[in-house]
């Protein structure tokens, strides 16, 4: 167990939720003593972060016996938000209890896990809680002949396409699109590297948990980080736009050693300030519709060319009905717009980290995007080695659709001048 000390600021944005409460540690006193010994604690709290990045604490109380008399385990959740899915909490508690059994001396971790098995306690998505878009929705997509590959992340199937060889070029899409958005950039970039285009959980061909609490800024970051770890990607050139950047930049800050270059387009990572009227209007609209007409939204937003009916329909393919849109409908409200907004603190920590990085950064930016258009300067100011401004003229928010080949060309020539030491490409 790796105990940590969270900052008072972080704790101020969270609420402590008592999960396990021992009022009297008189049963099996040797176990209680072993816990106190291993946590180096008689009275007070120790904290740890779980495999789901959730914060937990063990609190021991001393009622004057000279040894712990009470014990509580708390989960810490975003202060005013519903807690994460129960099976995540189960998994995290089980990890902790297996540790308790292991250090106790008188118990076996195996007995705890087998007891849980016998009781039918599975730290997994409950039957029927995850949707999967039927395959036939993705038949004959114009300009997207790529076969999906799959990687399992926390019991969810994450879909991605992979083309080319060499160092990974990881392309992350945002709201409410999927890997299809990058189709014009895949062939040119696949000539110089191993292009990987995953669909975020809740989007494209990836699995879609039904319940709202599954989706948080933190869970998207975690899923992408675990996807990268599962494929063990290194020397990554990260290409991202919209939420792909909001997520990707957090992953970059957590595991900078995996990344060698960053291409961020019409995206941002905010400290919890009002992101401007364009975004606020979109947020207001999106939180009231109940269902998104994604093909229509794409048609209206792609400016430099006219989307064909089949292309527009491809953006709607992942969503046979509103039930499949949970992730898409939630995304706009996950953008931190206040200093105490869930995710704002984590973003501030990530931004501090990003300021210290030396990786080369390219920021192709569409100039006809009312939402993220104004965010370029803020993002630019985070980085030391950032290329001069690169404006994609006349392009809207989905610049990969407006000018995919053009942007890919810029990325290629920029990558050639920013070689990775010891890299294959």
């Amino acid at each position: 167990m790796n105990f940590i000390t969270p900052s008072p600021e972080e704790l101020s944005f969270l609420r402590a939720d008592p999960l396990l409460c021992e009022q009297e540690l008189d049963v099996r006193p040797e176990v209680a003593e072993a816990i106190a010994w291993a946590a180096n604690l008689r009275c007070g709290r120790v904290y740890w972060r779980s495999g789901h990045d959730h914060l937990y604490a063990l609190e021991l109380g001393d009622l004057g016996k000279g040894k712990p008399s009470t014990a509580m385990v708390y989960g810490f959740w975003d202060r005013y938000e519903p807690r994460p899915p129960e099976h995540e909490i189960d998994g995290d508690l089980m990890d902790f209890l297996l540790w308790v059994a292991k250090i106790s001396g008188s118990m076996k971790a195996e007995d705890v896990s087998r007891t849980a098995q016998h009781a039918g306690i599975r730290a997994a998505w409950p039957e029927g809680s995850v949707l999967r878009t039927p395959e036939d929705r993705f038949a004959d997509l114009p300009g997207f002949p790529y076969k999906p590959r799959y990687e399992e992340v926390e019991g969810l199937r994450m879909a991605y396409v992979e083309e080319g060889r060499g160092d990974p070029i990881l392309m992350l899409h945002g709201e409410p699109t999927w890997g299809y958005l990058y189709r014009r950039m895949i062939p040119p970039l696949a000539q110089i590297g191993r292009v990987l285009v995953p669909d975020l959980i809740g989007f494209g061909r990836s699995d879609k948990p039904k319940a709202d609490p599954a989706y948080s800024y933190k869970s998207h970051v975690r899923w992408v980080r675990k996807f990268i770890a599962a494929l063990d990607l290194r020397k990554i050139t990260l290409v991202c736009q919209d939420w792909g950047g909001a997520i990707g930049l957090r992953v970059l800050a957590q595991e900078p050693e995996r990344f060698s270059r960053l291409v961020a387009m019409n995206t941002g990572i905010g400290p919890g300030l009002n992101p401007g009227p364009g975004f606020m209007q979109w947020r207001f609209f999106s939180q009231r519709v109940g269902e998104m007409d994604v093909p229509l939204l794409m048609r209206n937003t792609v400016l430099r060319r006219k989307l064909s009916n089949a292309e527009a329909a491809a953006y709607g393919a992942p969503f046979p009905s509103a039930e499949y849109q949970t992730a898409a409908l939630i995304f706009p409200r996950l953008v931190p717009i206040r200093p105490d907004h869930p995710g704002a603190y984590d973003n501030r920590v990530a931004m501090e980290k990003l300021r210290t990085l030396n990786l080369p950064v390219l920021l192709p930016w569409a100039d006809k995007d009312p939402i993220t258009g104004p965010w370029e300067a803020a993002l630019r100011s985070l980085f030391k080695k950032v290329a001069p401004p690169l404006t994609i003229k006349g392009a809207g928010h989905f610049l990969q659709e407006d000018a995919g080949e053009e942007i890919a060309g810029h990325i290629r020539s920029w990558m050639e001048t920013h070689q990775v030491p010891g890299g294959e490409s």
Partner: protein
Amino acid sequence: MLRPKPEWLKPLFPWEQKEIKVNGRTMAYIDEGEPTGRPVLLLSGNPTWGFLYRDFIKPLVEAGFRAVAPDWVGCGYSDHPRVDAALTFAHHIADLVSLLDQLRLRGFVIVGQDWGGPQGVGAALQRVERLSAMVLMNTWLFTGYVGRFHSSPRPWTTWHAPLIGQFFMKRHKVLSHHGPEAVSRRGMTAKEARAYHHVFDEPDSDHVVLTWPRTIPLRKEDRGWGDMEVIEKRLPELAKIPTLLLWAPEDNVFPIEYANRLKELLPHAEGPVLFDRAAHFLQDDRGPDLASAVVAFLRRSLKEGK
């Protein structure tokens, strides 16, 4: 006022429970039969309530007895305190003593299974002059013997351990929501299983399901050791009380060794009379047969009853 019972429960459990304040908490109990009839206290254990004795009420009343089946505080339709300290062995005993006093029960009979045994006998010992007979079923009244079930790591001592117990018993309600159904020999209907566990639906309402296991005296330091020792030492005072042992030897929790030990401590007891096709909750598995055995025993030993 007691919580109203759901409609679906009424055909299975037609009796109106009464309520009484014991030690500041509400205790629910069935009280059927003539008020002048000899009171027979039907005492259940973990994690059940008066419902467990539903097959006993009618035969006892028809035989002229007064059937009194309380729900222990923490169980059934009684109050469910969330505090360990309100659910100790001594509390449970004192609650039953309070019931005996307030209902002015004289010449009462104790019928107890599981925790109904030690808690019932513990209370009877406080009012031993008014006790007239005992029926003990799959229970124990002693320290110093620990069977395989209570000493084995799966599931018992794991369910039990600090924090780990909270996870299984409270967060996942493995015992309160699945116990009786899981060991039923007869095969319970869904409604019957629901009748046992619906009383623990409210989160954190099943505190007793964890305080009871932790009261079982396995070692000297355990919560229940001292109180159980007091009961065991006083058992000779019951040497003249007609006693019957009814036993389900297929029960994993209290196998026949426990009956044999009880027989050593209460050598005058009849039995153990064995009932097959029954497990820990034998009143549920073989209710009518056990009820007739109890009625016959009371008629025989007390020379009364219709």
